């Protein structure tokens, strides 16, 4: 019986998972993820794929906002860059699926780098407003550069192929989406065990102190923008290859807010929090819609109100989390784990 978590070596301190129970939980989770698609209906597979794709985007945003402390309201714009470049590279240059994912992510990283430049001079609210401008400008370019993007017309993509296999449909894409999400989660978790990740955290906590101990603040801020945008672009490119249709409406300011809500509700600066947040924000509207369908027969007036209820619930959830549990679902989950871990000697 433990009364807390104690480490007797650096090795144990640095390990991603060290308690036996944590390893068991992880193994159970992996097993669940692996057998899930064989039993799930296509409705649930669709939700699972969306969660996986959003997890990648939320991880990207969390690197920037949660770990480095640079507020971004331009997530939707960066996802648009990822989605459109993946779509255009596939359609115009005939790039294979995997190459278009990679190229789109790199391109988004470059765009993120450019819009990270204001972070040289700006902090907090001012930076947030600058990224809002990035969102509006990317949106304008995408809808007005008709020759390249087709303007407000939708891009229609062929279904992706990998090793000669067509990866269309929810079941096949599930493996790609979950694989990439797992890789992104592992990458992020490991990033914050390295010098680079720790420099990010140092900048978030106290930028002047960080520069005093030898962190080149500007360089690492830009790196944070690029790393974050890479994952965000990847998520956008995955959406393009999964939905097979790219339209501007998917990547508006609302999208930026949706992702911010995910990481706030899930937990800022937490890998599992990004996953929890993405899951929550995908399941909440899905559940409300399901509820609406079941009420359609008995109480049509209530069902008609549901779109408004959904919008209101989104806001209420954000406000409640901020007021009651600012560290999000990840903190709630940690409380539950700690309670059982130190039971009965908690104090």
């Amino acid at each position, binding site marked *: 019986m433990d009364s807390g978590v104690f480490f007797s070596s650096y090795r144990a301190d640095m390990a991603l998972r060290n308690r036996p129970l944590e390893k068991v939980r992880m193994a159970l989770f992996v097993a669940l993820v692996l057998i899930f698609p064989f039993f799930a209906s296509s409705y649930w597979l669709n939700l699972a794929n969306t969660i996986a794709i959003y997890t990648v985007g939320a991880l990207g945003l969390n690197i920037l*906002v949660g770990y480095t402390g640079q*507020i971004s*309201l331009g997530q939707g714009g960066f996802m648009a860059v990822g989605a459109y470049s993946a779509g255009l590279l596939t359609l115009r240059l005939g790039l294979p699926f995997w190459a278009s994912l990679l190229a789109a992510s790199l391109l988004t990283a470059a765009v993120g780098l450019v819009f990270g430049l*204001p972070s040289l*001079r*700006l*902090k*907090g*609210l*001012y930076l*947030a*407003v*600058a990224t*809002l*401008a990035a969102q*509006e*400008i990317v949106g*304008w370019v995408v*809808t*007005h550069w008709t020759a390249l993007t087709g303007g407000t017309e939708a891009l229609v993509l062929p279904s992706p192929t990998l090793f000669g296999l067509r990866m269309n449909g929810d079941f096949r894409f599930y493996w790609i989406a979950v694989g990439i999400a797992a890789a992104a989660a592992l990458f992020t978790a490991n990033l914050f065990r390295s010098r680079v990740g720790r420099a990010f955290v140092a900048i978030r906590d106290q*930028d*002047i102190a960080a*520069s005093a101990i030898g962190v080149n*603040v*500007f360089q690492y801020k830009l790196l944070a923008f690029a790393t974050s945008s890479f994952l965000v672009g990847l998520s956008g490119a995955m959406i393009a290859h999964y939905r097979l249709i790219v339209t501007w409406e998917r990547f508006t*300011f609302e999208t930026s*807010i949706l992702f*911010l*809500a995910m990481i*706030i509700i899930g937990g*800022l600066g937490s890998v599992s929090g990004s996953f929890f947040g993405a899951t929550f924000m995908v399941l909440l509207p899905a559940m409300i819609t399901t509820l609406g369908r079941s009420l359609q027969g008995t109480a049509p007036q209530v069902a008609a*109100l549901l*779109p*408004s*209820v*959904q*919008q*209101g*619930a*989104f*806001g*209420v*959830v*954000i*406000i409640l989390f*901020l*007021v009651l549990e*600012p560290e999000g679902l990840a903190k709630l989950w940690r409380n539950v784990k700690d309670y059982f871990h130190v039971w009965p000697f908690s104090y």
Partner: protein
Amino acid sequence: MDVFLQLTISGLSNGMIYALVGVGFVIIYKASDVINFAQGEFLLLGAYFAFAFIVQFGLPWSLGVLAAMAMALVVGLLVERLVLRPLIGEPVISMIMVTIGLSSVLRGVINAVWGPRPRAFPEFIPSTRVTILGATVGLDRLITIGIAGLLLIILTLFFRYTKDGIAMRAIADDQQAALSMGISIKRVLAVAWGMASMSAAVGGIMIANLVGVSHDIISVGIRVFPVVILGGLDSIPGAIVGGAVIGLLEAYTGGYVGHGLNTIVPFLVLLAVLMVRPYGLFGKEIIERV
């Protein structure tokens, strides 16, 4: 020349509305360091309140507008009490997100009560055409400029001469010193949110009078960012000048350049201002740099 004058007047009337909304924004920022992302929803809510009182309850327009302003005041006070006060002293991102959450709640409520359909607004400012210096402009535009200008003057006077206005300036200047002089920060915050909500409601009613009540009004809330950044986030004259400049800039690019460029010109200005002079034209130079 008459095209130029037409664009100037339509730009200025939009600009004055931006200024009015921007002042609400600045009041909140000065009193509590919060950027209010729900300003657009406050505009829409004010317009719908007026719509409800005038059309649905059949009040005469003068009473309807007053009633709408009173309702907006109540909403502003409620929001401050229920949402903002528990978050005093939290990090910037929480403040931003809570107003974003608020905007979503307000949108949900507005949708539930009035539905998503755009509504025609009772025309209480006549839109007859008048000719000045060879340019034909709507009378409603001119009156809008007049009313907004008058309100802006009243707000400026309020800040300069009333006790609450001076308390607000004191809080913005040095919170601790103000507290030790016996100024109640809770009261100041409540007054700030009430006033911001009311000025947004008036702005919303004036926009609705020009273009009708629809969810497009919300987008004005976003367009206010360039206005307040250009003028300086903590400056009321700045918001007025910024509003006029952005309104005119939009009108001229819309009229002479086209291509929908007028929708992003304000944001290009915003980026430029942030790079060169982040505290804006009239803001206090206390922006932190690393």
